[in-house]
C-alpha cells in the first residue's frame, strides 16, 4: 500500500507537471487574447514528432532544443496568418478556427508519419532506474521530465515577473490599448506569446513522446484534459494552472492505481449492493473506470458553480 501511494504521488507529480507545461502556454494565450486554443495539444504532438524525426539524425539532445523552436515558429505563423485574420469575426470564429487547425494538425501528422505509433525511444543515458524503494524502481527519465518541467516553471515565473519583456506581456494582458499607446507593438507581443506557448507545448511533447507514446491520437488524449486544467485553475491564471495540473495529475494517477468497484466500496461500508440486476452496470464500475470521467465532471461543476475557476479573476 505504501509503495502504491509513494509511486502514485511521484507519477502524479510527473504527469501533473507535464500537464502544467501545456496548461501554462494555453492559459497565457487565453489571458492575452481571450482565445481558447484548441490546437494547443496539436502543437504538443508536433513537438513529439519533430523530436522523433530530428532525433534520428542529430540525436535526442539537439532535438530537445530544436524541435520546440520549430513548433514555436509554426505557432507564431498560425497566429500571424490565421488567428489575426479571424480575430475580427469574434471569439466564436476564433474558437472554430483553432478547432480547424487542430483537425488539420491531426490529419497532417497522420499523412506524414502514418497512423501507427512511431518508436520514439528514451535516450540510452536516461534509460536506467534512478533509485529503488519499497521493492520497485523509479526510472531516471521520469526524474528528468520532472526536472525539465520545474525548470520551465521557474523560467516562466522569472521572465514574467523580473524582466522588462515580462512586464510588457503582463501589461498587454490587462491593458492592451494602453500598452499600444506607449509605443509597443501589441499584435507582435501576441504573436510572440502564442509562439512561446506553442513552443512550451512542443517541449512537453518532446519529453512526453517516449513515455506516453508518439501516435496521431496523442493530441486528443491530452487535449481535453489540458482544457479541464486551465478552466479549473481559472482561465488566464498561471498559479491556478499550476495547482490544477498537480491536482488533476495526482487524482488521475491514484484513480488508475485503485482497482475497486463501486459495489465493493458499498459492501465494505455495509450497503448490500450488487443484488439488483437492473443497476448491475453501475455496481461493477471500478474507480479506474471512473477516472477518465472525473476531470470532465469537475470541469462542468466548476463552470457551473465558479466560472472564474479556482484562481481566476474574470469570466470567459
Amino acid at each position: 500500500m505504501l509503495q502504491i501511494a509513494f509511486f502514485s504521488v511521484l507519477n502524479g507529480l510527473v504527469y501533473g507537471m507535464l500537464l502544467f507545461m501545456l496548461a501554462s502556454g494555453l492559459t497565457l494565450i487565453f489571458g492575452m487574447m481571450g482565445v481558447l486554443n484548441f490546437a494547443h495539444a496539436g502543437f504538443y504532438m508536433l513537438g513529439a514528432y519533430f523530436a522523433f524525426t530530428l532525433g534520428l539524425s542529430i540525436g535526442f539532445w539537439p532535438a530537445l532544443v530544436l524541435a520546440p523552436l520549430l513548433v514555436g515558429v509554426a505557432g507564431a505563423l498560425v497566429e500571424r496568418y490565421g488567428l489575426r485574420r479571424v480575430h475580427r469575426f469574434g471569439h466564436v470564429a476564433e474558437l472554430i478556427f483553432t478547432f480547424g487547425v487542430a483537425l488539420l494538425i491531426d490529419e497532417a501528422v497522420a499523412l506524414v508519419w502514418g497512423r501507427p505509433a512511431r518508436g520514439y525511444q528514451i535516450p540510452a543515458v536516461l534509460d536506467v532506474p534512478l533509485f529503488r524503494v519499497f521493492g520497485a524502481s523509479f526510472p531516471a527519465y521520469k526524474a528528468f521530465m520532472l526536472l525539465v518541467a520545474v525548470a520551465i516553471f521557474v523560467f516562466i515565473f522569472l521572465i514574467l515577473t523580473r524582466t522588462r519583456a515580462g512586464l510588457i506581456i503582463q501589461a498587454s494582458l490587462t491593458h492592451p490599448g494602453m500598452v499600444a499607446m506607449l509605443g509597443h507593438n501589441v499584435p507582435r507581443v501576441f504573436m510572440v506569446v502564442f509562439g512561446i506557448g506553442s513552443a512550451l507545448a512542443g517541449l512537453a511533447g518532446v519529453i512526453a513522446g517516449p513515455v506516453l507514446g508518439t501516435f496521431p491520437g496523442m493530441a486528443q488524449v491530452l487535449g481535453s484534459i489540458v482544457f479541464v486544467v486551465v478552466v479549473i485553475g481559472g482561465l488566464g491564471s498561471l498559479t491556478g494552472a499550476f495547482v490544477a495540473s498537480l491536482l488533476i495529475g495526482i487524482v488521475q494517477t491514484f484513480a488508475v492505481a485503485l482497482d475497486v468497484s463501486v459495489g465493493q466500496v458499498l459492501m465494505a461500508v455495509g450497503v448490500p449492493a450488487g443484488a439488483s440486476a437492473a443497476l448491475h452496470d453501475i455496481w461493477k464500475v471500478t474507480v479506474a473506470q471512473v477516472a477518465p470521467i472525473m476531470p470532465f465532471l469537475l470541469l462542468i461543476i466548476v463552470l457551473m458553480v465558479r466560472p472564474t475557476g479556482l484562481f481566476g479573476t474574470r469570466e470567459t
Partner: protein
Amino acid sequence: MSTPAPATTRPLAAGRAVPTDRRRLYGLWIAAAVVLLALPHVIRTPVGVPIMNQMGIAIVFALSYNMLLGQAGMLSFGHAVYFGLGGFIAAHVLNLAGRGSLYVPVPLVPLVGGLGGLLAAAVLGSFSTARAGTVFAMISLGVAELMAASSLIFDRFFGGEEGITTNRAKAPLLFGLSFTKDREVYYLIAFWVLVAAAAMYAFSRTPVGRMANAVRDNPERAEFVGYSQRRVRFVSFCAAGLFAGVGGGLFAINYEILTAENMGLNASGAVLLMTYIGGIGYFVGPIMGAVVFTFLQSMLSDYTGIWLLYLGILFLATVLFVPTGLAGVLMLHAPAWRARRLPRLFGPYLLAAGLALVAAVGIVGLMEMVHFIASADASRGAKRLFWVSVAPRTVTPWLVFAALAAAGGLGLRWAAPRAAAAFVEASRPGPGR
C-alpha cells in the same frame, strides 16, 4: 462591399409583398418535395440511394446544429450526443417493437428518436445553457467527453464496443408499408427530412426563434426587453436536441446499428464542419453543407486515405476566406442576378476557377505522394494519380506537381482580383454600362 444581413435577421416582409413572398415560399417547399420524390429515378447508380440516405440524415442533423450555432449563436462541441442518444433510444424501441412488446411502426421511429433527443437536451441543457459563448462551448465539450466515457461503462444501454444492432424488418407494419429495400428507406427519410426541415424553418419564424436571434446578437438588450436569455437559449437547445434526435432515429432505421462513435467528439466535429462549410447565416446553408460534405466524404474516401485532411483544409479555407460559407457566397450574387449581369461574371470566374483547379491538382498531387511514401510499402514504386501512373520515388513528378501548384497559385493572384472587380462591377446598383 458589405455582407448582407443573414436571411434569418431580415424583418418580416410587410404589406403588399406578403402574398407573393408566401406563394414563392410554398412553391419552394413543393419544388423541394418534387425533387426529393424524383431523385431516385434520376440518379440510377447503385451507390446513389445509400448516399442520398446518408445525405438526408446529415441534412436533418446539420439543420438542427444550425439552430444552435447560426440562429442562437451557441457553438456546441457535443451536438452528436443528442443525435446519438436519440438514435440509441430509437434502436432500443425498434428492438422492443420487433419483439412485439411495444407497438411502434418503423415510420414513427424517428419521432421516438426525437423525443429521446429532446429529453436528453432538456436534462443536459438545463445546466449547460446557463451561459453563452466560450463557457457554453466548454460545457458542451465536457458533456461530450462525459458521455463518450460513460458509453464505455454502461454497456447494457450502449452495447460496448459492438454497439446496439436492430432490425427494421421485424417491426410492425403501418398501412402495410415495409422497409426492406434501400429505396423504401429513402422515401421514409425524404419524408422526414421534409417534415423536419419545414418544422425547423417554421421554428425560426416563431417569436421564440426570433428571440434566439436577438439573444445571439445582443443578450443584454434582450434582457432589457424582458426576456430571460437563459430561457431562450434553453428552448433553442431543446428544439435542436429534438431534431438531432430525429436524425439519430433515421440513422438507426437506415444503418440498423448504433455505436458509441456516433455520439463521439468526431461526430460532433463533423456536424460543425458541414454546417460551417455550408454557411451558418442562411437556412439553406446547412443543407448545402450536408450534401457537399457527405458527397465529398463518400467520393473522396473511395480514392484517397487522406480525405479528412482535404475536408479540414476546405473547412479552414472557409473560416479564413469565406466565413459566410457556400450559401453566403451564392447569396452575395443576388444583386448581380437581379440586375441581370450574372453572365458577365462567367468569364472572370471561369478563368479563376481553372487556375484554382490547376493549383489544387498540384497540391493534391504533392500531398498524395507524401502519403504514398509515408504509408505504402517500399516494394510498390508507382501510384495512380489523376488517371496517370506516377512514381513518387523519382524527382520528375515532384517537380511537375510543384510547378502546377506554383503556376496555379501565381495565376490566381493575378486572376482573383480581376474576378473580384468584375463582381463589384456587376453588383453595382443602377443600369449597367
